[in-house]
């Protein structure tokens, strides 16, 4: 069930995630790419193709941002392309890297994700006002917090979920992030702190939300032949999946992300996973808001619909629980430089499976992990299955 060639990740790198970094986007891309190449023990001249992921051009005010970032990402004189699926880009970019190698077209591919949100002044939320339909929705003056509030409300209502249970996700992820050197908002907070934080758009409060951020991440993908030469410890990409729902988000029931389930089923089928909760040892679902982690756990079939809050309350998703979720600290703890945050999740699974996650290492010698991101207008799921 694999491509003509099996594809391995052999190196990963993530820069600091911060609200306002001095480095330009090109420099961030360079730093992440350099770290990933160093871990792989490879040089830029070994790289045969480059894939870039980055979210809207409007953040940077640069048209064709992929072209602009090309030299920073190491694409000089190389086959290079940028893929873009909104917030799902971070996990989607390594999927694009996968087919560069699995097709037999190249035996190495450098995947770089970069985000520089601080150059969007005064706040990147303004860039998001133009993701809506220009006739039906933009005149209302919507922003992202509103639509997340709608979705969160619907999810809470459908399963009768208390805000206290959702707040536990924020508490867990921000605490996990204390052990992550890149993290922007690692903290020891309590459920009370979340419930007492500023209300943005009910039921979304300040501490339910991940912060905007600058940062970059990169991974090196190689074919099986090259993997054997450069490492004893490759992590294989065994499943890829992605799916987009209709543009008309107002017509669907927001309580459950069907598109994530479709993407997960595509990836599980490729990886031969039949019983996800049993066969998956560690997961990094997308958590730009705390309820989204729960929402996506259900979409990824890691538990039944409406059951994710219960697992969280019982500590199953803690780093030492039966099914560790977001051991990196996730977006809530590490920050949310959109495309880079998604690829950071893939890097985290890579390090967890190699036993290189340091203080964040989950116990029990994990062998299979997944990362997932979500994007566009509440309509995109991208999923990757990694195995040691």
């Amino acid at each position, binding site marked *: 069930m694999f491509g003509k060639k099996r594809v391995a990740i052999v190196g990963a790198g993530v820069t600091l995630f911060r609200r306002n970094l001095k480095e330009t986007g090109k420099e961030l891309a360079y730093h992440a790419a350099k770290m990933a190449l160093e871990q792989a023990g490879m040089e830029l001249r070994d790289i045969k193709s480059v894939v870039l992921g980055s979210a809207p051009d409007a953040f940077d005010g640069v048209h064709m941002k992929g072209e*602009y970032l090309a030299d920073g990402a190491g694409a000089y004189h190389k086959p290079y392309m940028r893929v873009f699926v909104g917030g799902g880009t971070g996990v989607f970019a390594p999927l694009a890297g996968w087919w560069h190698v699995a097709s037999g077209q190249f035996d190495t591919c450098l995947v770089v994700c970069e985000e520089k949100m601080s150059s969007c002044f005064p706040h990147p939320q303004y860039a998001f006002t133009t993701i809506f339909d220009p006739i039906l929705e933009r005149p209302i003056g919507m922003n992202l917090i509103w639509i997340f509030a709608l979705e969160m409300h619907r999810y809470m209502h459908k399963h009768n979920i208390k805000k206290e249970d959702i707040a536990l996700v924020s508490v867990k992820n921000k605490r996990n992030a204390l052990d992550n050197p890149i993290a922007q908002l690692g903290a020891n907070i309590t459920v009370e702190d979340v419930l007492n934080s500023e209300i943005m758009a009910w039921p979304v409060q300040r501490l339910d939300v991940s912060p905007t951020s600058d940062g970059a991440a990169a991974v090196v993908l190689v074919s099986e032949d090259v993997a054997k030469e450069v490492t004893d410890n490759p992590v294989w990409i065994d499943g890829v999946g*992605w799916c987009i729902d209709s543009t008309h988000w107002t017509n669907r029931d927001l309580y459950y992300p069907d598109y994530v389930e479709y993407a997960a089923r595509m990836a599980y089928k490729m990886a031969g996973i039949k019983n996800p909760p049993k066969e998956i040892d560690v997961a990094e679902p997308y958590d730009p808001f705390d309820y989204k982690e729960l929402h996506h756990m259900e979409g990824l079939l890691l538990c039944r619909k409406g059951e994710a809050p219960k697992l969280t309350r019982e500590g199953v998703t803690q780093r030492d629980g039966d099914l560790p979720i977001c051991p990196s600290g996730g977006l809530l703890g590490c920050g949310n430089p959109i495309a880079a945050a998604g690829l950071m999740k893939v890097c985290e699974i890579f390090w967890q499976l190699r036993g290189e996650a340091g203080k964040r290492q989950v116990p029990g010698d994990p062998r299979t992990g997944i990362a997932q991101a979500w994007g566009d207008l509440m309509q995109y799921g991208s999923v990757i299955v990694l195995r040691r």
Partner: protein
Amino acid sequence: MSRVAIVGVGCVGFKPVTPELSFKELMFEAAVKAYEDAGGLNPRKDIDVFVTCAEDYLEGFSIFDEFVPDQLGAAMRPLFTVSGDGMLGLATACMLIKTGQFDTVVVEAHSKASDILTYIDIVQFGLDPVFNRPLGGHPYYVAGLEMTRYLYETDTTEEQCAQVVVKNRGNAIFNPYAAYGANITIEQVMCSERLFHPLKKLEISTPADGCIVMVLASEEVAKKLTDRPVWVRGVGWCTETPSLETRDWTRAVYTRLAAEMAYREAKITNPWRDIDFAEIHDLFAYKELQHMEALKLCDYGEAGKLTEDGLTSLDGELPVNPSGGLLGMGYGLEASGLQKVLEVVLQLRGEAGARQLDDVEVGLAHTWRGVPTATGVVAILSNVE
């Protein structure tokens, strides 16, 4: 390596304006045509992956990907955006099929240029925000400077560049998909306004609206769907550098490297002999000549002379841009690569009507991403297995 064929094409446009159709309707119409052309496919069941090629600023959205699935029949299906030219989507489709996981892939690219009120301001936003943009001025001056350098280094004449315009707009008269076919003379081109010295008004392609959708399939499926598949023998793509200061200004290195990659895969050793005709990116007239040389279809500095001698005209030895090129069809923004591929497919199928070339077996399609980029894609297509 498994082989990939183009089994269906659909095109709407190209027209100077399309007030009667939204971008979604353009895409829908082209998609329906392509699915029918491929033997009546149902996109909800028969297509494995959808690739759309678009840039946010040209669409006026921050995440254009959102607005794509429904009109292609791709809702709740695997779809994604390549932020680039349609031919990068074609390259992606080939890779997807070669993984062995997918049998049918759809590629879409379009232009709704008439909706863009400030196209040049958008191009301006493509310049480096620190080093280049603050200098001000129209971004096409970059092309004017490059043309100056190219003419100086290669002894190509301005009249030879003008000849490209005469040829391409003349070819476009025979192309129903072309917006700007015309009988013009070298004198008219030479007398047109010098907008970005030495680049003249008639040497610059005018944007046009349109959409192209293509269906690609693996060898096994292609043979079931159609008896006239067009095989993708090789694809190459390359980015030189975004830096205006350090790139090569005469030789279009990005095109040379992309061509070398495509030729390697297609096992082409002598492009002039092995290739019957070529569709080359001609956003500016001199670019057709510069790209011909980078594609090794002739020696460095020779393209102008060949054009002057008529070797690249419809009845020449190596017809270049029989479609009319972008100068004749209109510049389809991110669809310009697929405009090139479309013509090669139609010629290889023998469906090019009044501009049909005789006995063609191997065609080349080439694209470039326009000012200020240095990214190019080359594909070698053939109607022979």
